[in-house]
């Protein structure tokens, strides 16, 4: 079911340069993005989000679709409502085993994604839950923050409560539905929204 995007409140965080640092917990825990779904992960990332194929080849070492390891991002199809997790190279035998097209991929055969597309796949407006791990959080996070991501109000409140200092250092100006707001007031407002959706936007300050 499509989330209620139309009634999402908007929180805008103005930064000197869009820095994903204060938002690490949200970026790794999962956020919703609206996009064209029903097509391959590669098409989704390059065409909808403007990430280059060269970057994907060089940096995108580990991919999970619905919790299963993806070897071929050019074949695995992201359907609406799917959960997609992206990571750069990971340590450990487990990290080497889970990486895409790795020499040890047969060691996790039972959780490998079957990349066959379906005849019913149609490219259409939809949404996915995205998770960014490891250094990809810092590298790709700003792209998604600039575009606007959807998170539960309670998750943003947790972030503010846990890393309020970093949040204050990172954001030079905060607005909620275009009205200036300080972090404490924002925290209180979010508390009243519970699990309702908030659209979080990272905006670059006009001085840059």
């Amino acid at each position, binding site marked *: 079911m499509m989330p209620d995007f139309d009634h999402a409140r908007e929180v805008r965080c103005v930064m000197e340069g869009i820095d994903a640092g204060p938002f690490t*917990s949200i970026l*790794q825990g999962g956020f919703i993005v609206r996009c064209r779904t029903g097509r391959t992960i590669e098409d989704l990332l390059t065409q909808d989000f403007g990430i280059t194929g060269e970057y994907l080849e060089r940096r995108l070492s580990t991919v999970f679709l619905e919790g299963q390891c993806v070897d071929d991002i050019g074949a695995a199809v992201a359907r609406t409502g799917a959960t997609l997790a992206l990571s750069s190279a*990971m340590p450990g035998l487990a990290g080497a085993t889970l990486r895409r097209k790795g020499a040890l991929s047969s060691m996790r*055969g*039972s959780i490998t994604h079957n990349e066959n597309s379906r005849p019913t796949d149609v490219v259409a407006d939809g949404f996915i839950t995205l998770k960014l*791990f490891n250094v990809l959080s810092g590298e790709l996070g700003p792209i998604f923050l600039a575009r606007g991501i959807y998170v539960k109000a309670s998750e943003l409140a947790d972030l503010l409560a846990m890393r309020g200092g970093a949040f204050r250092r990172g954001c030079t100006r905060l607005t909620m539905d275009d009205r200036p707001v300080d972090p404490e007031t924002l925290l209180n407002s979010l508390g009243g929204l519970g699990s309702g959706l908030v659209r979080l936007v990272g905006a670059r300050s006009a001085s840059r």
Partner: protein
Amino acid sequence: MDKILRINMGAQGGPKLEEAPVGEFAGLGGRGLTSTIVAREVPPTCHPLSQENKLVIAPGLLSGTTAAMSGRLSIGCKSPLTGGIKESNSGGQPSQVLARLGYAAVILEGKPEGDDLYKIFVNKDGVTITVDNSLKMLGNYATVEKMQKEFGETVACISIGQAGEMKLAASSIACTDMEGRPARHAGRGGVGAVMGSKGVKVIVLDDTGMSVRQPKDPDKFREANKIFVDGLRKHGVTGEALPAYGTNVLTNILNEAGGYPTYNFREGRFAGASKISGETEAALEFDRGGVPTHGCHRGCVIRCSGIYNDKDGHYVSKQPEYETVWAHGGNCGIDDLDKIAQMDFIDDDTGLDTIDMGVAIGIAMEAGVIKYGDSDGAISLLKEVGKGTPMGRILGSGAAVVGKVFGVERVPVVKGQAMPAYDPRAVKGLGVTYATSPMGADHTAGYATATNILKVGGYVDPLKAQGQVDLSRNLQIATAAIDSTGMCVFIAFALLDLPETFEALLDMLNAFYGINLNADNVADLGKTILKLERDFNNRAGLTKEQDRLPAFFKLQQVPPHNVTFDITDEELDQVFNF
């Protein structure tokens, strides 16, 4: 590094020293040396805490040189936890210092009568062994503090906490780090109990006046080391992920894969994973003025460790590693990094293996002793160990014992050793290694992912499925070889992807010793070590029937993928067919 120091702790009239040339053991280091000595000199059927067992402490082949990443210390014995041969290794300063003092190994033999506790001091002038009963039942931190006051701030220490003194089977041996903190541990297999059985509380090492070990061909060695370091720095794992987030960067992907053991291996995902992930841990450390990027010994260029401070900026512990965060965190339903860091400190101070303790507490939670998620309850249980209460002694004896005492069926151990942080039902290849390693359930036993570069078992085509058994065998062989160099096993990732880095490692060994080692020789060394270890275990009574995972892994599906471990016993028996 041309001599071996033997100390007979049970000699008449008190401990007796004997120094001898390295002789027949020349060319061996680290795990290669500890396992060779244990296999040759320890009766396999002896009691691990008896006078017949030996504790062998050996730097790696390149320890004490300027080679990067060369500071792992191997500690071997017959394990009181598994009943088989054990090599447990640790970072920290002692490996470098011991090597610079010229020792290829220190071997503690025999067993003293009476209950005196000894400290051993080694410097360029020789070895002194002294009774020091003031150290009794001190934690590692207090012990090291006393040694630093007595011998100077720059010494390196190898010590045991209360758990080792009580000869508990999950006890570790601590090694001091660059700041002189006993925060690096040879954690696995109860090696601390064997040191305790020898009556030795601490070995203090002072390399003042000693110089860095010199290679036979300094120019070639320097050049090879440069290429080696460049390879580590430019690789995505060793140059980026590990320095930025430490090993705990694995939490998120194991959780996403459904292979993150949760609630004592009931589930494969933990709802609180993102609260305790490496990304969160590093951010928290940074916010609090801690250090998210920090080496554990001189010469470490990966720097996967860090300093964990409390909210007021005071030191709590070194940055808890992935295995620790998992064992005390997700495995027990705890999602509070501050509490996990406190438990890490208690483990380090008491001298306990964090994996076995986290799994032991998870089993106690399953038995209803405390509830899942009860972090204060878990801290209280851990403190019981240091106090030596009956409950503490049960917990400190490890997960297998706790399972028996509390009548729990789901006890994730192999050969008595607790399983690390990867569910073998989701990542089955790891399960093969857990089952068949001579060390018991051990994720590092098959860690050397560079099998293609090492040419172990032939080239593996990543696009074709290869048997998990074959891969596990090759990984175990490669790892046994790397463990002998004294190199941190994390170098394996750069070796996997950058052939010139592996060549540089070989060149360093060749330039240092004036030899002509090639990839085949490295693989042969790994095979030889594994065969020795396997043979010891067979003679100790550990046969193929012990090369199995607990039955629940075959019978109980783990969500979210609802998979079981379905590698047959016959396949497992093929791992050691070389």
